[in-house]
């Protein structure tokens, strides 16, 4: 039955990957990649149980954290076109 859950998660990841390749806007792709990442966390957890060694859960936890940070960073980049300076006008005022 772990095999059934693993197969279902793999099918979901394939569907998300198709949407990431098709996606008309960049936000569709980011949404699909975010879903792909959360399904990867689930896949790592279920795969640990499938092989009888549930030690991969630490990796799954770290992957969840990294996935969230990566999505927020990519969105900030697309929203402001920059990662460091969200308010360029204020920075210019401080400098003078």
């Amino acid at each position, binding site marked *: 039955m772990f095999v059934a859950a693993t197969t279902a998660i793999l*099918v979901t990841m394939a569907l*998300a990957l198709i949407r990431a390749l098709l996606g008309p*806007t960049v936000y569709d792709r980011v949404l699909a990649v975010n879903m792909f990442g959360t399904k990867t966390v689930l896949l790592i957890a279920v795969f640990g149980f499938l092989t009888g060694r549930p030690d991969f859960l630490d990796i799954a936890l770290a992957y969840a954290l990294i996935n969230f940070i990566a*999505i927020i960073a990519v969105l900030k980049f697309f929203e402001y076109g920059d990662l460091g300076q969200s308010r360029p006008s204020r920075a210019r005022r401080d400098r003078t």
Partner: protein
Amino acid sequence: MTMAAIDALSWVCLVTGGFFGIVGGIGLLRFPDLFSRFHAAGVTDTLGAGLVLIGLMLQAGWSLITIKLVLILAFGLFTSPTATHALAKAALRGKVKPLLRRKGT
């Protein structure tokens, strides 16, 4: 007896979680615009991930593994709405309009 019941319950949770995952994936492919695709992604993040992780918790019993699974579930339930909110805000600022009527009418 109780062990068999917990085992059966965990299988039901795992299979139902996988089903909701596939349903969310199909929705992500077939919904017409970005803001309805958020809905499909939300189904996999809450019901799909929640049921699969609850099924794994029932398999693991009371141990450190269950605590880690609870942490993964709690973190997912916090981050998924945050990421979706940021994505919707960025999409609105990026001039993506919601689809307000069916295509062709």
